[in-house]
């Protein structure tokens, strides 16, 4: 089995689906001959031609709007927004159009499409190349929101997203693009959307996380184990629709929960996990749910390592809930 980076796994998924299905059409800013600013689409124009993978004008709402039009007229668009920070001009097209189309037309029109976009910090990108906007989108009925954290999942989830009958926002943790390698099978396979992945088994504390926070939490869990705390790490990987049963099972297993994300805390995704547990599993809880998140500030540049949850902060929270 090939050992690939997460970025190569994304590229592999696109090659695989484009070979399988000629309707799959990839487009966005600089995704053509250049292969994208991160090279996620490298080689696609060469192999499949300019009709299947091409550059667009610098227009995020145009890109996503065109994707909706392609999706309702026989293609399977996989468009790229260069950085998730730049997605907001397309917010209307995602939230009011793609996500609501099936509902508002009673299923007459649907938008099977994928919007891929790198998100998150860790590359010294400052306010506008670092954000984690998943909560804006996870608040949108009709949309699916997926975030892989391993090369294997990146390929399998992306293929599942392309095959999904509903619009999927596929957020790629850019901090992991090249830093993480793993085994990736050749050819087509899928990882079911709306399933969680157990990244580490443990019986004392449960940590919920996703994307670039997964390896951070795994490291913190390994360190905690040295101190005698066994941590159960759950990679949520599909934020919407969430596998709520799996989350509740994992929370009940230890009765002590930490939720970790890069995005700001207030109304962040961790609030939903906390509320879900409070509403459905309060009687199992031995300690208050603790959140480890970005601060409720814009994303800083020079001090980004203080802003982003790191092993230190996650470990501190694990120890805190373990000793409550």
């Amino acid at each position, binding site marked *: 089995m090939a050992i690939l980076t997460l970025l190569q796994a994304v590229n592999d998924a696109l090659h695989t689906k484009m070979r399988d299905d000629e309707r799959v059409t990839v487009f966005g800013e600089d995704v053509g001959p250049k292969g994208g600013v991160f090279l996620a689409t490298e080689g696609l124009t060469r192999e499949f031609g300019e009709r299947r993978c091409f550059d667009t004008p610098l227009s995020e709402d145009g890109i996503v*709007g065109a994707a909706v039009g392609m999706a309702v007229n026989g293609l399977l668009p996989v468009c790229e927004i260069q950085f998730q920070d730049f997605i907001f001009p397309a917010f209307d097209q995602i939230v009011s159009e793609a996500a609501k189309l099936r509902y508002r037309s009673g299923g007459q029109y649907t938008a099977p499409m994928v919007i891929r976009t790198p998100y998150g910090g860790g590359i010294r990108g400052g306010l506008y190349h670092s954000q984690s906007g998943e909560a804006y989108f996870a608040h949108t009925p009709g949309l699916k929101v997926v975030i892989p954290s391993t090369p294997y999942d990146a390929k399998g989830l992306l293929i599942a997203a392309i095959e999904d009958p509903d619009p999927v926002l596929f957020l790629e943790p850019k901090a992991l693009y090249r830093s993480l390698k793993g085994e990736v099978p050749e050819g087509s396979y899928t990882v079911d959307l*709306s399933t969680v992945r157990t990244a580490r088994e443990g019986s004392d504390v449960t940590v919920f996380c996703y994307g670039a926070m997964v390896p951070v939490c795994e490291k913190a869990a390994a360190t905690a184990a040295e101190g005698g705390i066994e941590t159960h790490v759950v990679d949520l990987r599909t934020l919407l629709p969430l596998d709520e049963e799996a989350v509740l099972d994992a929370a009940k297993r230890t009765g002590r929960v930490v939720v970790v994300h890069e995005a700001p805390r207030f109304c962040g995704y961790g609030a939903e996990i906390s509320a879900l547990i409070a509403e459905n599993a309060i009687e199992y809880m031995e300690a208050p749910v603790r959140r480890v998140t970005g601060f409720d500030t814009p994303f800083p540049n020079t001090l980004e390592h203080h802003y982003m949850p790191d092993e230190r902060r996650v470990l501190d929270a694990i120890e805190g809930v373990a000793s409550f």
Partner: protein
Amino acid sequence: MTETLKMIEADGSAPSFNGALDDKALVYCYRTMLMVRAFDDICMKLQRSGRIGFSIPNKGVEATQVGAASALRSTDFFFPSYRDFGMALHHGAEPVEMMHNMFGNASDSARGRQMPVHFSFTKPLRFFSISSPIGTHLPQAVGAAFASQAQGKDDVSLASFGDGGTSSTGFHSALNMAGVWKAPVIFLCQNNGWAISLPSSGQTASDGYAIKAKAYGMPGVTVDGNDLLAVNRAVSEAAERARAGEGPTLIEAFTYRMGGHSTSDDPTKYVPAEELEKWAKKDPVLRMQRFLAQRGLWDEALEETLQAECAAEVAAAAKEAQATPGPTLETIFSDVYETLPNHLRRQGEQAFDLAARKGDADAGGGAFPL
């Protein structure tokens, strides 16, 4: 910029008409215009009597709608605004299906989820589901046009919008992208004088809207929007260019919204009475009627027959729609995704359980303000 295309003179003569529509098609176009008016009339009455919540009148813009529709095939992809349903009627959409939407009942294709006048058809024509935000359908029309071309089909997309729509982000993004891609799409700007209460003069400082085409690398055409033949010709020519791979066209049709923005709007508060009088003399239905009369295709007897047919059809449609029960509770939760996710299943079960224990929610007396 070319001169504004006009074909039907005030007296009904049309010396430059080349027979693009045969006699039967011409009368059918006229009938569609009357049907739009009949549908409008009954919706106004239904709204005023409290039986439906809202409607969008089309009086004054019928020639643009029907002229454009008559130039296109039902396999072309229509991306309409909310003041365009004459296009759907022209291609055979059933008034009763539209009326189900006006009542938001169980037979509505949108299951009562949308406000009235937000129609959606996949047959007998591709009439894209209407959304309320302005201009979002323009980039979608470009994407659909691209897809037609990529699949080797010669279908075109028509994006129809008002003068207000030209100020939206979607207008710029779509025209720019369509120009670069040479997409087979027709942008039909219905300059009807008003965007709710803002006159067209407050919408742009440019010399009209068609001129904007130049900056996007496509032809801009102006046409008398109250002249069905002229609109038919302008859209036919744009469609021909698009099908031949020559790219998009922006058409600005000069027309006039003779009613309010909607049934909730009182245009007498901001529309000068003399402006309305001036445009009433240019009524597109009368204009077409005079043209048909000149050709010996219209007389009072035909008028009576057509009016009676249209009125009866919309009245029967309204009666049937009113008698159709409302959507059931589960339609709140269906069609969000293809497969119902567990969290929605649970929320639905809770709603059913509450209804069983405490009765249905009070419908209240909500009235739409716009």
